[in-house]
């Protein structure tokens, strides 16, 4: 699915594998909050928890409950609940008897934090193995205590009994409550943990597969949960950043007298082009940041073209990296002999994370250590990055993960963590920092914009015999996670990495049988590489929504040219596919068919035939299909297009989805649902706009997002999850955080075409753009 360029996914895999990245976590709203080990270490230093010790993962309490420690975080997809389910099954303990601590760099093992939708798919295995090992060790202890071989024992809900005599029993707490396992596990890294115990086969899992309600929701709806944004410490002060007024601007002068008389102002901190104010109270910091007079000198050359000229710029810019085209068959010959030749160009603008809660962190410099309270999804990476940035030993820095606004990749939570730590050291007091709305929307990292050129050849039978795909992404200097030389404060202080990251430009995930094809991708740079708000970083399947939009729109255009039903056109190419790794072909066909069945798809070519008088509202349906890793999704969108206003409403969405074993089906459905709507927001509303000096889409008016009134009337998420080989007991779970997000923009565009006969090749499909397209 990837070209030879390092695309987002493989880059992420590399980062994780290297151990440079970190962890995340979340504390459950549960009884046994932090483990005893954490209390002892509270004053620091904070050495790495040893992932090879069972005690790092599992604590058995005297009341026969258990706390699990995992090196992950939960951005709201319910992975925390799922981790508990998986570990409960292996440890043989009721879900209600357990709690979970996530992503605190001092007490949870480093599992890289969140990212890549692999929490269940990859990291869940280490959790299952250590929990199974815990059960094995407890069985051995029980065997000794009860004087009976392990084979004659039975385990149920943290109690071990003789199979022959249930009255002879011992609880986990009686065996180990409040004490340590002192058992080491093996493995060269946390993913390679190996234990003596066997994990259970799927057909013996009891807690897994239940739609247990998320443990974190009650405290989120009654106001009792303490979030990172709620942390308070004695002596704490509040900070706000003052960003350069123009991209690439140089600080000339700060007039500190402009805020000297304002109440509560403690310090104006500046280093290079980084400026912040520190005040006693939050509203004072907000006010002082607004009032502070700063002179900025504009850069000699324009930092970027205006957003309206972005795609022209990208088409003509000299590439910074070019992939070796991937070629299969003989595309040139196939194109030469084609019956029909179809070409189309697509474009996707910069789109941002724009978290609902602006980036924030609280940093505490007490005792010569540095503790950062943050919702960063990679707490270990934040910890390591800050240690390098501040020149502190790693063991002096700790990151405590707490809940926060959504984290779908490289968000500004990274930047805020570094800034808070820097300011805390400068002022010698705990500093709570939060970005402004304008700062978040303008300066947060963005998903890269793309332009695409596609060419397809149909033979006389209307079959796709050749495809030529060419993508250009403006992704040069793509930001990694928590890098001490690329976080925003480092850039503004003048630090630079040895060279900018190469960035990624992806080619589509193609399972379809297309005998002759060529895929090529290149990367271009914006004129200004550093100290610019147009920073690219991973945003929810970093390239998938863009690439799938172009590819699955084009497949639709080919089906139109072939006068074939677009769903049938795809099914035919899947049935002819030669690859069937992890049953991906069979599962893809099952997913597309399930979507069609659920929607009630009647086969006919697009667009919908016009009958009778045309009203001002036209209805159409569109399909798009994709896979991500081993997870498969097909999305059918039904839209209403108002020809007078240009408004597009996705009235109904069906998503059929297969990610293997479902740990928590309802949680999975919700994750898929929100992935769909997040992509619908990108389809209909989201675009970063800028003039030649600065980002101009800076709040919810200038940067609109999906709203209640845009919500579909009906969403059907169909979990196709199943193993086509029912005799196999080991159906694994695959990731589910991003796949459903990929095909939505294409499904909507295809539906708009079906409704109107007009092809939209550039999101977002806001009313003005749609009206214009309908008029031409």
């Amino acid at each position, binding site marked *: 699915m990837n070209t030879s360029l390092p695309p987002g996914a493989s880059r992420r895999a590399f980062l994780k594998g290297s151990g440079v990245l970190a962890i995340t976590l979340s504390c459950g709203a549960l009884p046994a909050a932090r483990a005893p080990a954490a209390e002892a270490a509270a004053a620091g230093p904070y050495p790495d928890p040893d992932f090879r010790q069972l005690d790092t993962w599992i604590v058995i309490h005297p009341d026969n409950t258990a706390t699990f420690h995992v090196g992950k975080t939960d951005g709201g997809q319910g992975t925390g609940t799922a981790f508990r389910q998986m570990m409960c099954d292996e440890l043989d303990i009721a879900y209600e008897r357990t709690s979970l601590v996530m992503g605190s760099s001092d007490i949870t093992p480093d599992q890289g934090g969140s990212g890549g939708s692999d929490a269940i798919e990859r990291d869940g295995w280490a959790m299952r193995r250590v929990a199974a090992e815990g059960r094995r060790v407890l069985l051995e202890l029980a065997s000794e205590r009860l004087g009976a071989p392990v084979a004659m024992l039975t385990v149920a809900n943290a109690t071990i009994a003789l199979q022959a005599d249930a009255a002879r029993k011992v609880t986990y707490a009686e065996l180990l409550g409040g004490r340590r396992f002192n058992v080491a596990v093996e493995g060269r890294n946390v993913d390679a943990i190996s234990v003596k115990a066997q994990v259970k086969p799927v057909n013996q899992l009891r807690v897994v597969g239940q739609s247990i309600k998320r443990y974190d929701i009650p405290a989120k709806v009654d106001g009792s949960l303490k979030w990172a944004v709620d942390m308070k410490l004695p002596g704490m002060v509040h900070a706000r950043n003052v960003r350069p007024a123009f991209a690439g601007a140089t600080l000339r002068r700060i007039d500190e007298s402009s805020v000297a008389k304002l109440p509560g102002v403690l310090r104006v901190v500046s280093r290079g082009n980084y400026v912040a104010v520190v005040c006693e109270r939050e509203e004072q910091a907000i006010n002082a940041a607004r009032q502070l007079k700063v002179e900025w000198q504009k850069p000699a050359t324009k930092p970027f073209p205006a957003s309206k000229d972005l795609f022209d710029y990208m088409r003509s810019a000299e590439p910074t990296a070019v992939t070796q085209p991937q070629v299969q068959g003989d595309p040139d010959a196939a194109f030469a002999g084609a019956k029909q030749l179809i070409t189309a160009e697509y474009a996707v603008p910069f789109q941002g994370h724009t*978290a609902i809660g602006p980036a924030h962190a609280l940093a505490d410099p007490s005792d010569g250590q540095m503790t950062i309270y943050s919702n960063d999804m990679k707490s270990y990476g934040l910890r390591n990055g800050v240690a390098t940035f501040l020149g502190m030993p790693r063991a002096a820095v700790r990151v405590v993960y707490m809940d926060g606004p959504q984290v779908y990749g490289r968000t500004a939570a990274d930047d805020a963590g570094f800034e808070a730590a820097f300011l805390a050291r400068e002022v010698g007091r705990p500093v709570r920092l*939060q970005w402004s709305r304008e700062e978040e929307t303008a300066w947060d990292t963005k998903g890269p914009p793309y332009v695409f050129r596609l060419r397809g050849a149909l033979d006389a039978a209307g079959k796709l015999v050749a495809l030529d795909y060419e993508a250009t992404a403006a992704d040069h200097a793509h930001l990694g996670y928590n890098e001490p030389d690329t976080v925003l404060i480092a850039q503004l202080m003048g630090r630079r990495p040895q060279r900018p990251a190469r960035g990624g430009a992806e080619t589509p995930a193609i399972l379809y049988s297309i005998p002759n094809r060529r895929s090529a991708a290149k990367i271009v740079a914006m004129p200004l590489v550093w100290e610019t708000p147009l920073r690219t970083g991973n945003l929810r399947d970093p390239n998938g929504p863009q690439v799938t939009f172009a590819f699955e729109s084009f497949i639709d255009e080919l089906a139109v040219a072939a006068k074939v039903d677009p769903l049938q056109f795809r099914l035919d190419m899947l049935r002819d596919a030669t690859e069937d790794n992890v049953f991906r072909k069979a599962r893809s066909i099952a997913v597309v068919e399930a979507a069609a069945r659920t929607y009630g798809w009647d086969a006919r070519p697009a667009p919908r035939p016009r009958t009778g008088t045309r009203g001002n509202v036209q209805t159409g349906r569109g399909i798009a299909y994709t896979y991500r890793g081993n997870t498969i999704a097909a999305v059918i969108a039904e839209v209403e297009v108002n020809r007078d206003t240009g408004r597009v409403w996705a009235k109904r969405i069906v998503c059929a989805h297969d990610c293997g074993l479902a740990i928590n089906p309802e*949680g999975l459905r919700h994750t898929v649902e*929100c992935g769909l709507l997040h992509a619908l927001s990108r389809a209909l509303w989201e675009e970063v706009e800028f003039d030649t000096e600065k980002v101009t889409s800076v709040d*919810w008016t200038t940067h609109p997002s999906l709203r209640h009134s*845009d919500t579909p009337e009906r969403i059907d998420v169909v979990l196709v999850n199943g193993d086509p080989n029912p005799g196999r007991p080991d159906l694994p779970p695959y990731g589910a955080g991003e796949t459903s997000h990929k095909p939505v923009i294409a499904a909507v565009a295809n539906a708009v075409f079906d409704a109107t006969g007009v092809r939209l090749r550039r999101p977002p499909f806001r009313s003005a753009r749609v009206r214009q397209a309908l008029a031409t």
Partner: protein
Amino acid sequence: MSMVRLRVNGATHEVDVDPSTPLLFVLRNDLDLHGPRFGCGLGQCSVCTVIIDGNATRSCITPVSAVRGEITTLEGLAKDGRLHPLQQAWIDEQAAQCGYCQNGQIMTAKALLDRNPNPSDAQIRAAMDGALCRCMTYYRVQAAIKRVVRGNGGREVK
């Protein structure tokens, strides 16, 4: 600075702050009520919503000195240890994802149902339209509101 008296969730508080301070920061930082959160400071997203005399109010743009009536925050919805029907419906529908915005969703919905216990789908969409969510939980939030409306048979839900 000056003393400001506030009635919040049935209790009276006096705080010594600049009268222009947005209510949001007094609630969060002086009274330790964390239900309302900072989202935009512009009155655009609803994350900071509280209810003042029955009206959903954006506390981030409301000067504390301008508040005259009784303030209800998310923490004040539960009565006698029982969750408000909306809070229970949120749990039943598993409406939250990250949850950061859910204060705005719940408080906006409460103001709606207090005013109109039996809103149509269109009225729900219109009333909730200013409550933004970036996890895109809208579908479940609407389902949770409808669940309360159904369970209530259209009666008053205070």
